[in-house]
Each structure stands twice: as structure tokens, then as C-alpha cells.
């Protein structure tokens, strides 16, 4: 079992950072968040082609 994600989850449990229930709850929360984000993206209007020029650099006065 060399998959680092699986190994890290096992390590977290072994060292008492979180138990199995907490990890499962976290996974569920993340799955919902990803589903919602996917749905938002699927339903969003297509961006304007000219928007490709935005955010190459930080814009004046912007963040």
C-alpha cells in the first residue's frame, strides 16, 4: 500500500490526530463541496473570450 493519501489517513488515525468518524465526516463534507462547485461551474455562463487577458498580472488597484 504505497498510496500516500491512504498512508497519510492511516497515520492520522494512528497518531490520534483524528478518528475514523471524524475523517469520514470530513470526506463527506468535501464531497458535497466539490459537487456544489461542479454544479455551479456546469451551470455558469461561458466566460467572455476577452477575459483570457485578465489576471496575468495583478491589476492596478486590484487584489
Amino acid at each position: 500500500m504505497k498510496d500516500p493519501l491512504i498512508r497519510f489517513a492511516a497515520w492520522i488515525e494512528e497518531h490520534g490526530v483524528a478518528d475514523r468518524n471524524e475523517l469520514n465526516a470530513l470526506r463527506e463534507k468535501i464531497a458535497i463541496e466539490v459537487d456544489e462547485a461542479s454544479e455551479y461551474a456546469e451551470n455558469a455562463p461561458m466566460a467572455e473570450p476577452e477575459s483570457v487577458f485578465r489576471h496575468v498580472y495583478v491589476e492596478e488597484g486590484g487584489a
Partner: protein
Amino acid sequence: MAEKTMVEAIRDGMFEEMKRDERVILMGEDVGEGGVFRASEGFLDEFGPERCMDTPLAESSIVGAAIGASLNGVIPIAEIQFADFSHPAFDQIVSEAARIHYRSNGTWSAPIVVRTPYGAGIHGGPYHSQSIEAYYAHVPGLKVVCVATPYDAKGLLKAAIRDPNPVLFLEHKKAYRLYREEIPDEDYTIPIGEAAVKREGTEMTLVTYGLMVHHSMKAAETVEAEDGLDIEVIDLRSVSPWDKEVVLASVAKTGKVLVVYEDNLTGGFGAEVAATIAQEVFDHLDGPVTRLASPDVPVAAFAGPLEEYILPNPEKIAKAIRDLAAY
């Protein structure tokens, strides 16, 4: 003769070279599984794990190990899954592979081939779409090949494997399965550094390479049919070395030149082509040496319409031809 896609021609080229010379090996991520684009389908069964070697996800190590093996008589083909992932191996390619011959006073050389799919047009986003040829064309001691047709891919890959120098072999991923072409049954190679005149013409020279060869050919056909313009199209096929002789002779004949490349405009390889033309055949020019390339933004768009907006296509090329023809 058999009709092959480009990725099939590449597979055959590697297979035949590994059969011909047992020093040739393939190494890379998932190559034993057939590779992400199926370029090494069946290689593990045929050649075993010592000659078809799966590696960890560590590009610097893949190229570094290939260089080390090559210094000990092996001829490794190092596959990088996407050209975008070659950046971690930049130091190995540039500082080690490209310089070992020079800095050892000709004693050592690294006859590796680094194969990698490059280019956009598959909605791959920022990590699966980059053009990387200009970074490497800048480096003496390294050869850089850009292929986009099945016949050229096989002949140039065999030449790259047999070349005693390190070769970066860039395969346009959109061209992998774009169409089929007749490939001779017998062994053949194509010398690295020779351009192909894809279409002869008298009124303008169009210099390009990679996927843009196909777009440029379409554009040339369109302007011939609609505007009666007779365009010569040259596929460089390699950017280091590149075929100055064929390009300069063509421009001297036609008097106008459009350089088309997929990479960002600034510092893309076409800039080198344009500068050389301006310097060498200035007296023959009847119009400005013109470039058409992608704007200076990352090819970061997953969305089809955005990616399409960035990249040169047959319509944009046809427009650039008409504008220059009218000058």
C-alpha cells in the same frame, strides 16, 4: 505500406529501434502500462521491465537516470507524460545532458531522447497545453524536434534515437490521432534539421511547425480558392537545428513571409526565424516580416471557446495572409 496515426507511428518507431539495438530502452511514468497516450502499448510484454521501465513520478530523476545510463552505454528514451511536466527536469536537460560533451572536452556524451507530448487544443488547461520548444531551442548542445505528422514522427524519432546527441522530441498531442498517413514498411530516417516544403507557392512564404502546419495548410487552401493567393508552406520539423537555407531561399523567392507558431508571441521560436529573415534577406522583402502566434497569456483555459480565442487557427491565419498580401 500501412496507414498509421502519429502515435502509432511513434510506437512503431520505438518498437523497431528497441528490436534493432538492445542498448535502446524506454523509461517513464506508466510506460509499462502502455503510456498515457498508448505509445508503448505491449512494450512491457515484449521487452520486459528492464527495457520498459516504470519510474516514480519524478521527472528530474527520470531524465537524470537516463543521462547516467547513457554515459554507461545505454540509449534511453525518457518519456515525460506531458511537456508541462518537463520543467522539473529542466536542470538535468540543460545543465547536464546538453553540456556534458562540451564540458568534458568531447570525452562524454549523453545520447538520450526525451520524448514528450506538447501543445494545446485539447482543453487541457494550464498543465497539459504548453509549448516549451523556445526554452530549449535556446540551449546549445541540445537538438529540439517538433513533429505533427505520422511519417515525419517515425522517421525523425528513429534519427533522434540514433543521434549521438541529446534530443528533445516534442510530439504535438492534438496531432496524435488527427489523421492516418501511409508509412513505408521498410526502415527510414529523416535528418534532424531539414524542413519540409508542404506546399509550393510564389506569392508568400509561411513558416511554421507543429499543429500549426495543419492549420496553415488549410488557410493556404482557403486563400487560394477565395483570393487566388499562391502560398508556400514550410514545416520546420525541428527548431534546433532549424533549416535556415530552405526558409531563406523561399523568402528570397516570394518576398513576403508570415511566421506562425502556437507559443506565446514574445520570445517564441518564430521570433528567431523572423529576426534571421530580417537580417539575411532584407533586400528581397516586399513587406514586413510578420508573426502570428498566441497572445502573451498562459494557455490556461479549460473552456473550449476561451482556448480557441487564444490559439491561432485556420481563419486567423487566412486573415493574416490576406493582410500581408495586401501590404
